[in-house]
């Protein structure tokens, strides 16, 4: 069993189930799969359906990706296409 401390908990906020949203999700999952080898949980929230969650998390823009665990919490916005930038933004330390 893997150590729970190494587990990543992430939330992705998107706007509507659009083509762009689907593309973003697919791309992100590919990157996470290759980097974290399944050691992550990704929750996807549509702000159109859950504005109160967006309020609680103080989301301003989409797409926003939040790394909740492990600390520190990181929020990144902008197109999630560049693997290097995503890893840097989320403070990942690749082993």
């Amino acid at each position: 069993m893997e150590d729970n401390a190494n587990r990543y908990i992430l939330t992705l906020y998107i706007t509507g189930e659009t083509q762009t949203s689907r593309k973003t999700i697919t791309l992100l999952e590919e990157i996470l799969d290759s980097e974290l080898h399944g050691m992550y949980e990704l929750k996807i929230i549509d702000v159109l359906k859950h504005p109160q969650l967006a309020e609680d998390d103080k989301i301003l823009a989409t797409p926003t990706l939040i790394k909740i665990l492990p600390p520190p919490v990181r929020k990144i916005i902008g197109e999630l296409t560049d693997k290097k930038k995503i890893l840097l933004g989320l403070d990942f330390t690749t082993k």
Partner: protein
Amino acid sequence: MEEIRKGISKLNTGIKGLDEMLMGGLPKGRAALITGPTGTGKTVFLNSFIYLGITRYDENGVYVTFEETPQDIILNVQGFGWDYKSLVENKRLAFVDVSPNDVIMEIGTNYDFTPLFKRIEHAIEKVSAKRVVLDCIDAFFARFLNKDAVRSSLNQIAVHLKSLGVTTLISGERTSDGSGHTRYGIEEFVSDAVLELDLVGGQQQFLRTICVRKIRGTNYRSGLMEFDITSEGIEVFPKIPYKKIEMNTDYSIRRKFGIRQLDRMLYGGIPQGHMVLLSGNTGTGKTTFGMQFLVNGIKEGENVVFVALEEPIEQLKKTAKNHGWDFERFQKEGRLDFVSTDLIDIRNDRLLYSIVNAVNCIGASRVVIDSVSSLMSASMNEEQVRQFLIQLSGFFKEKGVTCIMNYLTGSSFGAVKGQLMSNIMTNDMRLSSITDGIILLLYVERGQSVKKMLNILKLRGSKHSKEVYRYEIEKGRISIIEKYEE
């Protein structure tokens, strides 16, 4: 035409004086922008708009904050005695917290602000809001690299808020380059109304000013107006629009002093709506004449206002008491009201507004200003005094108020024989175009004594005595003794 007029109705903000200035309020269901450099009171305006909306008009509010946290705002407004916490708990007020409480890293510039948009919409639904404020959007711009995305999202928000029928007030910093524009050009999408705030240097303190740069499709009073931030929030002191004055005076209605001889000299008293200059050197009894005029008004069942610019009200009351007039009681009974001001930095609009308020409040028909000279020796220059009096005169004529303005002249003393009238100061004459009458009080040195003389120099639209009379003041009682003949 009627259709167009119906197109934009107005929403009372509830802010003292602002609705008068805006001739009804802000354009309802539209977005207005309030701009100004730091510290000019933008946020207080927004808070007043929200708070008064909820508490006075039952119009709930949404506060979108880009700068301070809701917790800080809640604390800040406690100073005004406003309990935001319970308003939030009772679903009268909702915050959309966009304060920079965490770091957002931009890994690309391709993002949109739909969540913000949805959050505002959600908050409006949550409390059924009718009013929304965005404070202050520069902080929003400052946080993101993609200014175009910010701009287009604000545009989208403004359009959407209009479609929801809420009235929005947005604050933005104004650059100090004098162009009158906001840093990020917000006017482009919030152009239904633009209000500008400023701080201008007075002699001892800063004066706060507000002006309307534009309001689409409706009227407003133009020009700079003063405002103040008090313990109760904002108070704007709108100027009185002079053009709209309707004369409401009847010269056959006379207001007596209650001094038989003097009233006879005035052919029955001072006509309704007249502004009479009571000019004299120090000690000639101007204040006593003024008090006498007011007391006689009260005796005749009228209400009166004393504008005390020379001495403290308590001191005036004491003097009146010595004369046998119970000003304290008159005031308690609502027959007499006082207006006073800080003489170091007299603020025209504010003083004007207080006088108008006092007159309206008790329905006064007599006003004494003691004295006009104080205005000049304070921070107003001659032209400002003239403008002030023109506005006041317009208001008094509309209301049919008769006013006595005391005026201190220095050189009405020591006229030589045969030249009793030689020394009327030119200043008197400059004011004379505004005044409907002039009563002169003079000292004359004759033999071994100094005598007090009175003459009615002018009384518009009425006959009056041209003679010089001697008068005396004993224990505060004025008595006209006799025609003075040399």
